[in-house]
C-alpha cells in the first residue's frame, strides 16, 4: 500500500538506527505522547533498536485509557436503558467500569453497537426514530472534526434522536502537566502526528520555548518513528529547542483550517479529569451551549454513581511514563487483555496491551548491533 509499505523498509530502518547510534553521546529520555505510536514502537521493536542511552517512555495519549471511570459508569447506565441504541468505537466496549463493562451490557440484552465512523450513528438514528442513538465520543483532537461534523449534521438534518457522550481530551495541556511535574524526566517529545495533522503545530512552539525542549512532530510507521527519534536526539545533542516536523507529508504548520473551524463552532475548551492522572485545567472539549440538546450527559441525567477503581492497577503511573507495564505486579498474571484490571490493558493503544500482545514480559531487550 502506497505511503505505508515504503515506510516499513527494514534496510532503511537499519540505516536510521545506525545514524541514531552515531550521534548519541549521552543519555536522553524521550516521550512519545500518542498511544498509536506506543503501539507501533512496541510492535516493530523500535525501542529495542535504539542505543541503550536513548530511553523511550510512553505518554497518556490513549483517549480510551484516560476516560474517567465515572464516565464509563455513566455510559454503561445510559447503554442499559431500553430506549437507547448505544454506539461506540470498538475498544471502549471492554474497558472495565466499577462493576462491569459495555460488553456485559450488550450480553445482557442492551443495544450496544460498534461503529467505524460517527456518521454511521446518524444513519442508525434515522432508521430507528423511536429510539435514541447515543454515541460515545471519545478521542483526542484527531477525532474532534469527525465528531463535530456528526453533531452539526444532526442539527442541519433535524435529527433529534441523537446525542453524544463527550470524552474529548487535548494533547498540549497533558504535555504541560507532565513537564510541570516535580518528578518529570522527559527531555524531548515525539509529537502526535495525526493530532497535528488536524491542529497543526503552532501551539507547540510556545510550549517548547517555555520548557526549553525539542518537540518533533512524528508519524506512525517504523521509518517515521526512527526519523522522529533521530531528529529529537539530534536536537538534544545540539542543545536545540523548538518544534520540527519530519511528518510533513501529513502535517502543515496551520493544520487543517476548515476542520479546526468546525470544531470551534461545535465545541469549547473546558477542564477535564484524566483517569489515573486527575483534573488537568482546560484540557478537554465540551459541547457549546447552542448544541446542548445533543449532550447525552444532560439528556440522561444519571444520579451520582459510586466509582470503584481497582486497587492493584497502576495505569495512572504508566500513563505518565513513571512506570512501564512489566513493572506492574499484576501484569500478565491477574491482568491480561482477556481480563483487564484497567484501561491501559484493554485499549488497542494502551501501553500494557502493547507490551502484552508483543511479548514484552520482561521489558526491553536491546537488539545487538
Amino acid at each position, binding site marked *: 500500500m502506497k505511503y505505508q509499505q515504503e515506510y516499513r523498509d527494514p534496510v532503511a530502518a537499519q540505516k536510521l538506527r545506525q545514524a541514531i547510534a552515531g550521534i548519541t553521546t549521552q543519555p536522553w529520555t524521550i516521550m512519545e505522547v500518542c498511544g498509536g505510536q506506543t503501539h507501533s514502537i512496541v510492535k516493530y521493536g523500535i525501542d529495542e533498536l535504539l542505543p541503550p542511552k536513548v530511553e523511550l517512555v510512553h505518554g497518556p495519549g490513549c483517549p480510551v485509557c484516560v476516560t474517567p471511570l465515572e464516565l464509563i459508569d455513566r455510559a454503561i447506565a445510559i447503554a442499559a436503558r431500553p430506549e437507547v441504541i448505544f454506539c461506540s468505537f470498538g475498544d471502549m466496549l471492554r474497558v472495565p467500569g466499577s462493576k462491569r463493562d459495555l460488553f456485559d451490557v450488550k450480553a445482557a440484552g442492551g443495544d450496544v453497537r460498534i461503529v467505524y465512523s460517527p456518521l454511521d450513528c446518524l444513519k442508525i438514528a434515522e432508521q430507528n426514530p423511536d429510539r435514541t442513538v447515543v454515541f460515545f465520543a471519545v478521542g483526542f483532537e484527531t477525532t474532534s472534526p469527525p465528531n463535530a*461534523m456528526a453533531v452539526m449534521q444532526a442539527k*442541519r438534518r433535524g435529527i433529534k434522536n441523537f446525542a453524544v457522550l463527550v470524552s474529548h481530551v487535548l494533547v498540549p495541556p497533558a504535555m504541560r502537566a507532565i513537564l510541570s511535574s516535580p518528578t518529570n524526566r522527559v527531555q524531548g517529545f515525539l509529537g502526535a502526528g495525526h493530532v497535528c495533522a488536524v491542529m497543526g503545530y503552532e501551539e507547540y512552539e510556545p510550549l517548547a520555548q517555555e520548557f526549553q525542549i525539542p518537540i518533533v512532530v512524528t508519524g506512525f510507521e517504523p*521509518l517515521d518513528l526512527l526519523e522522529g527519534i533521530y531528529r529529537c536526539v539530534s536536537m538534544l545533542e545540539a542543545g536545540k529547542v523548538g518544534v520540527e516536523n519530519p511528518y510533513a507529508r501529513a502535517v502543515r504548520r496551520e493544520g487543517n483550517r476548515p476542520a479546526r473551524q468546525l470544531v470551534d463552532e461545535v465545541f469549547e475548551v473546558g477542564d477535564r479529569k484524566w483517569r489515573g492522572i486527575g483534573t488537568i485545567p482546560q484540557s478537554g472539549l465540551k459541547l457549546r451551549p447552542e448544541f446542548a440538546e445533543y449532550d447525552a450527559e444532560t439528556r440522561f441525567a444519571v444520579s451520582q454513581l459510586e466509582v470503584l477503581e481497582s486497587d492493584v492497577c497502576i495505569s495512572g503511573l504508566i500513563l505518565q511514563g513513571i512506570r512501564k507495564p512489566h513493572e506492574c505486579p499484576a501484569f500478565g498474571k491477574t491482568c491480561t487483555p482477556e481480563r483487564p484490571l484497567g484501561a491501559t490493558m484493554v485499549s488497542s493503544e494502551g501501553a500494557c496491551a502493547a507490551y502484552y500482545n508483543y511479548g514484552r514480559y520482561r521489558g526491553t531487550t536491546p537488539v545487538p548491533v
Partner: protein
Amino acid sequence: MCLAIPGKVVDLYREHDVLMGKVDFGGVAKRVCLEHTPEVQPGQYVIVHVGFALQVVDEEEAKQVFSFLEGMNELGELQTDQT
C-alpha cells in the same frame, strides 16, 4: 484514536450536501467524508481517520525521508573510503 491510514481517492460525490468520496486502501474501497479536504482530486491520497479525510498527502514531502537517507548513504561511502 490516532490511527489513520493513507488511501487513494477514486471518485467524489455529494450526500446530504456533504462532500464524500470513494477511497481505495490497497484494494478495499470505503466511503469517506472529504468535507475537510475540499480541494482533493481523484488520484490524490488522503490520510483517513474514522471515515474522514484529515489531510491530503503531500507527495513531495513524502519523499523527504528517502532523500535524507540517500544523503546519509553518500556520507557513509565517504567514511569507508577514508579508513
